[in-house]
């Protein structure tokens, strides 16, 4: 049809065209909002991805907190960041059954109690939920003034209730904050689970740290006490040494004059002579005690530099020679063989063995032939020496006591001695990182003195 001939039809076509054009434009503009919706969906996915990145960061930072308060602060801040809510609260279920608030963000401090008035039984769901969906529970938390919130209980690895985390918004916040998206429940539960594991680890580590700290404190205390004892021992020894040394000179003078009086018999009555003899005897005894004390004090002044290889077989042979007169007088028998060679202070070893052998002879009753047997047996860390005698023996109550200063088993003092010999022995052995003890079946049954010495002396 020729359009020139049909103007009405032309007009209709133009109107139709305009309508179609407007419809097309409408479709295009409406497409814009559809496009926008697609972007919103993509953004939601971006946000979800970002949220899991935040949870990952929280896992890292949550591990390195020094205190539970620090941990709770970090936790609330990460929950705020992950769920874009203005308020967050973190509570821990204590052993005494209280749900204690350990961290909060964005709340007025005065409205938050230290302990939440809740029990695990009040929780309406086991996983994350929306506060707004549970009016009864919302009423229990009314003091928080939250319009809505994400709430998630936390559990320990053994599934026991461990606490609660709440993140939400008050009425005033709704001006700028979007309503809580119910879809966030799942991510909130995931983050709460992460938080509970971190908190559990923190608490466990905290207990361990406390225990280690307490042990260390005790160790330091013991160390300090040991140091104090060592210092006071050293001071005492120094004091004993100085006193003994200074007493020795005047005593020597007294002894000298007493000796002169003993030799000069003229004009002295028999009674006076007896007195002079008694003075002389007592001075000698006193001198012997001072000598022993000096020996005792000198033991600790020997240092590691004095250590050398000591052939015990040779050493005992030498002592046997030195004591030959005594041994002969008492008809004593000294037996020893295959004694080892080990590192020790020669002079002190001589003193130690001499003391033990002399004691064995001394504490064998007159009329009994002393029999002394020496042997050494290798052990895991060194040698165990034994000096066995057939002397008066020891009651079990005396077996430890006799190593103390001025302690004697012979209370009636039938046998000569000053109660220092075994103290010196003990000190020598301990100086060599060894131990000394005595075993005896009982009085009259003889004794065996044992002492140990390590193969080598550790360098100080």
């Amino acid at each position, binding site marked *: 049809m020729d359009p020139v001939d049909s103007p009405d039809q032309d007009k209709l076509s133009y109107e139709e065209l305009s309508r179609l054009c407007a419809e097309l434009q409408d479709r295009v503009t409406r497409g814009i909002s559809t496009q926008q919706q697609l972007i919103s969906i993509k*953004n939601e996915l971006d946000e979800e991805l970002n949220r899991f990145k935040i949870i990952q960061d929280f896992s890292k930072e949550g591990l390195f907190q020094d205190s539970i308060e620090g941990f709770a602060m970090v936790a609330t801040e990460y929950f705020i960041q992950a769920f874009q809510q203005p308020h967050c609260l973190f509570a821990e279920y204590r052993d005494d059954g209280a749900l204690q608030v350990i961290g909060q963000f964005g709340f007025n401090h005065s409205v938050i109690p230290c302990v939440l008035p809740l029990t695990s039984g009040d929780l309406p769901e086991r996983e994350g939920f929306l506060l707004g969906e549970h009016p009864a529970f919302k009423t229990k938390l009314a003091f928080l003034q939250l319009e809505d919130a994400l709430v998630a209980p936390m559990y320990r690895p053994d599934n026991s209730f461990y606490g609660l985390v709440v993140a939400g918004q008050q009425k005033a916040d709704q001006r700028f904050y979007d309503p809580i998206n119910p879809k966030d429940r799942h991510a909130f539960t995931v983050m709460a689970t992460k938080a509970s594991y971190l908190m559990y680890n923190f608490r466990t580590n905290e207990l361990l740290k406390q225990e280690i700290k307490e042990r260390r404190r005790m160790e330091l205390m013991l160390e300090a006490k040991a140091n104090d004892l060592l210092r006071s021992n050293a001071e005492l020894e120094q004091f004993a040494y100085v006193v003994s040394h200074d007493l020795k000179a005047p005593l020597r003078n007294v002894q000298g004059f007493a000796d002169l009086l003993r030799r000069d018999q003229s004009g002295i009555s028999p009674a006076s002579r007896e007195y002079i003899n008694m003075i002389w005897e007592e001075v000698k005894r006193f001198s012997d005690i001072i000598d022993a004390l000096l020996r005792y004090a000198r033991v600790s002044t020997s240092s590691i530099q004095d250590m050398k290889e000591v052939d015990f077989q040779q050493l005992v042979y030498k002592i046997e020679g030195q004591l030959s007169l005594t041994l002969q007088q008492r008809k004593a028998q000294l037996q020893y063989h295959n004694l080892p060679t080990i590192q020790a202070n020669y002079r002190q070893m001589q003193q130690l063995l001499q003391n033990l052998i002399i004691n064995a002879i001394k504490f064998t009753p007159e009329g009994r032939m002393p029999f002394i047997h020496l042997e050494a047996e290798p052990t895991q860390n060194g040698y165990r020496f034994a000096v066995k005698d057939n002397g008066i023996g020891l009651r079990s109550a005396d077996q430890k006591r006799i190593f103390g200063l001025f302690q004697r088993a012979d209370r009636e003092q039938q046998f000569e001695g000053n109660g220092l010999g075994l103290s010196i022995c003990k000190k020598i052995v301990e100086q060599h990182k060894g131990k000394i003890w005595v075993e005896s079946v009982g009085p009259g049954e003889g004794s065996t003195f044992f002492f140990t010495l390590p193969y080598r002396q550790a360098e100080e």
Partner: protein
Amino acid sequence: MLNFYSASNGQVNSKKAIQQCLTAALGEAPPSTFQDKMLIVVHCTIGHDFEEIIAGAREICPQAELVGCTCAGVIGKEGANESMRALGMMAVVPGGAQQYHVTSCDNIRGHNSYEEARKMALELKATQADINMIQFLASGIDIAADRAIEGIESVFGADMPIFGGTSSDNMRAISSYQLADGKVLERGAIMIGYSDPTLTIEMGVHHGSVPIGQPFSVTRSEGNRVIKIEGEAAWPYLMSKLDLPADTHPGPCIPVAGMAELLPDGFREPYDNDHILRVIVKVDEDGSFYMPVDCPQGTRLWIVERDEELIFAGLDRMMERLTARIGGREVAAVFHTDCAARGRAMFDAIVKDEIIENMQQPLTKGTPLPWLGMYGFGEFTRLKGKNLFHNYTTSIYALIRQ
């Protein structure tokens, strides 16, 4: 000579956020700088506690003057952050004499935009400082931005470069806040006059949208209030065209309800577009809405759609032109305003990061150049020697050391 230091972060604790930013930014300056007099320009998102920001800054920089505004997101040299608690700051530290002056006003609206802006400009003028550029950060809810520009120009003349933007909330278009003089203002404005003779400014502006279909005609208006389009209540008419309910709040519509207006001939080439865009952030109950500039009866408005190709290519061309103008001169710092809709509302994370990278890289060239940007409701950017207000753009303000 003014020195610039910037930082941004997503720390949720407001006090910690500003203090960490200041520590990070001023970490590059001598340690005594913390005690110096300085200006701190802050952009932060709406979830932050503004009082805490002020207190936090005072604690570690007691002599600092803090100004700032809310936005939908911050852009720093660290990248963009549009969370509810993001913060960016630029510390402006004078080497000697104070070469900045600040003034502010509370409650700037469409009807008083000229007067309030003029009053603030007069206060700056009264300082007798030789101000050579003005940073203007105003509420973006219902300001008449063109009238505000006129107010400033009535004091300093049309040659005074004005840069900055309008503050926003998180795109809800409910309110915006400003920080000035230790106080928090609502729907206020801040004006900073810089008087460092060693500094000049180069700007770049660009949007990547194209009009679609036929334009609508404004059939009734009063100033920046558009009452009727094609004889119908303006907002319901526009919503019907977008297939959205008539009572839709303007906030969520920002990404889709932009309006284009034809640019005068001489501006089209430097703008790389024939149209300038307008955002609508306030609607009255009678269905009228507010444009950020006067909208006389007979104005033709287009609905627009973004063109991803144009967004990227146009941005590259803008940066090429900007870097060509800067030449070999030193860039001391960059301020940056971007439309809130150009953030996550319009782009996914990957595209958004790519856009930011494409605008930062040509200027920073891999160096930590001080950079403070925000996603707001509008941008004040000079174009062809004229101060203009824009929407939906990326606007870059490079401070150049002469």
